[in-house]
């Protein structure tokens, strides 16, 4: 075992990323194929090729309907959200020099969820009346709520022009508690039907995917996630220390603000699509760090691939084990993620490779 781990640590980054890409593509196709109706992978390719307008294969119409209007948007959404959450988690862990940080900690998730809950309870008629505007307003409110909560946390933690990380984490706890209280207050005014959707906000749900939602949300998610990938050197330097990073040429305050806003954008929009999905942002960067190494030149792109891999597997389980019903996705990410994570932590601890001292 020890030698296996040792060799994993010596694998070069391009090889790791190619392996993860291949795994992601395979899982993507398998997940498209499996469900209530099993669609052979060959048919999936035919249907997708037909949609380009260049081909006209004979395909089963049921397969086409299921694939095109249900599974494909769901899978695309799963990939985007998995990537956004994992990359945000990796960036925030690096930025705060703390492996326990996840997007929820700086208030993004609960702020977004609060925005969504308020919108649903008090503005549901508005969304129903304006379906086009509704698709647009949902991510905007989620992002706004997330950014507002994050801005509050950042303001609390500002100290002579610099961000005090300890205060920031405590401020995040406070703002999260406030948001949770306000969500509870909003629930007080909710009707039966609205109440049922609250599971969605606390445990996440990938079932609501549609192309209409994605047209608005996907470009934002891609924009924020890809931009976050551009900070590996800055995050490496910050890992040595904020002052040290500045000495090495990093404009630390600028990088800090930019990363926090980008994470608010990525996580806020994710929440608007699927509710709060915990664990991905925390565990994916960790898994990569423990399995391979801590260099952010690997962690960031590998999280981009690892987040979707983990979320696709979790979603596949969530929608197959109790079919035709579905488990909330957060239940599955927690149930698989936590034991795997604990096992890895124990192994890393015994080899003295833990990140906190």
């Amino acid at each position, binding site marked *: 075992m020890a030698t296996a781990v040792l060799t994993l640590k010596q694998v070069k980054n391009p090889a790791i990323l190619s392996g993860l890409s291949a795994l992601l593509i395979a899982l993507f196709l398998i997940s498209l194929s499996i469900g209530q109706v099993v669609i052979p992978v060959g048919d999936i390719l035919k249907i997708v090729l037909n949609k380009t307008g260049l081909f006209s294969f004979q395909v089963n119409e049921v397969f086409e309907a299921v694939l095109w209007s249900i599974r494909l948007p769901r899978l695309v959404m799963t990939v985007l959200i998995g990537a956004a959450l994992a990359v945000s988690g990796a960036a925030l862990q690096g930025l705060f020099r703390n492996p326990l940080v996840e997007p929820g900690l700086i208030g993004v998730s609960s702020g977004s969820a609060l925005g969504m809950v308020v919108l649903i309870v008090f503005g549901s008629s508005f969304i129903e009346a304006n379906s086009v505007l509704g698709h647009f307003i949902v991510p905007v409110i989620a992002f706004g709520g997330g950014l507002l909560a994050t801005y509050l946390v950042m303001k609390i933690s500002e100290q002579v*022009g610099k961000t005090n990380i300890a205060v920031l984490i405590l401020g995040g706890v406070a703002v999260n508690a406030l948001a949770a209280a306000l969500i509870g207050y909003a629930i007080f005014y909710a009707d039966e039907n609205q109440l049922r959707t609250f599971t969605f906000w606390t445990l996440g749900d990938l079932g609501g995917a549609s192309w209409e939602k994605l047209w608005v949300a996907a470009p934002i998610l891609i924009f924020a996630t890809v931009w976050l990938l551009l900070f590996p050197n800055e995050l*490496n*330097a910050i890992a*040595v220390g904020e002052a040290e990073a*500045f*000495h090495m*040429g990093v404009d630390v305050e600028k990088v800090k603000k930019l990363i926090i806003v980008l994470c608010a954008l990525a996580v806020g929009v994710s929440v608007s699509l699927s509710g709060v999905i915990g664990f991905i942002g925390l565990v994916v960067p960790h898994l990569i760090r423990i399995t391979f190494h*801590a260099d952010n030149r690997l962690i960031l792109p590998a999280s981009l691939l690892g987040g979707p891999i983990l979320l696709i597997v979790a979603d596949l389980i969530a929608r197959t084990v109790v079919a035709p019903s579905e488990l909330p996705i957060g239940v599955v990410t927690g149930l698989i993620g936590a034991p795997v994570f604990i096992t890895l932590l124990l192994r890393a601890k015994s080899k003295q*490779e833990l990140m906190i001292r």
Partner: protein
Amino acid sequence: MIAASNISLTKNGRAILNSVNVDVQPGSFTAMAGPNGAGKSSFLKIISNETQGYRGSVLLNGKAINNYTAIALAKVRAVLPQNTHLQFPFSVQQVVEMGRQYSGRSKNINGTLLEEVMDLTGTHNLRERNYLTLSGGEQQRVQLARVLAQVWEEQDFPRYILLDEPTSSLDIARQQLIFGLVKKACARNIGVLAIVHDLNQVSQFADQLYLLKDGHIAAKGSPREIFTKPIIEETFCCKVNVYNDPCTNCPYIVPENEFNISSSITVNS
């Protein structure tokens, strides 16, 4: 040169530094010593442009330090803080490489420089190790390698290294190695400013010494000029004897320790 003039700093109503003037010449080793809490680290943070809100001016190669971008500044000066705490299991190689990440140089040039600084600091054999599993002294040498890597490349302008107690967790052999390295850096047109507590090391290696006390410069000059019984006793409030080491021909300082003298007398009688 680094020219810090009339630097004053007040924190929470308390004066930390009071009209401090310090010059660091390229190609020479300037040491700074003084009692704990004299303001040495605060001063180092000001001239590395980490602290704002002070009075006075800092010129780096003739240009105000505030007019440098972070990257431009990183090419001219490198800083070794007193303590560095890494939170993630980076390898030694990865940590040292970070010193070159904004150099804009090719992989080959950076690779050669990294080899050189790792050889100089004796960290070559640690390169694959997890930084978090190193001893305190090893970590200090790795950080020093990172700092050297940042400004080691020959340039047509002078560079500077600012060190805050670079030898605090090193054994005497390694301490000698580090000061030998400082001299090598000076030979490459790098100016070094180091906060050092061990006055005998200062005496052996420093070209120029500033004694800082209660936020002002108490004395300035070559170690030979400054290391006199009255100046040292006045600055550190500690009885000392100053001797001349016949081997190095440098003054060396031995604190008088009344406790030891009296206890040895008691034992003998």
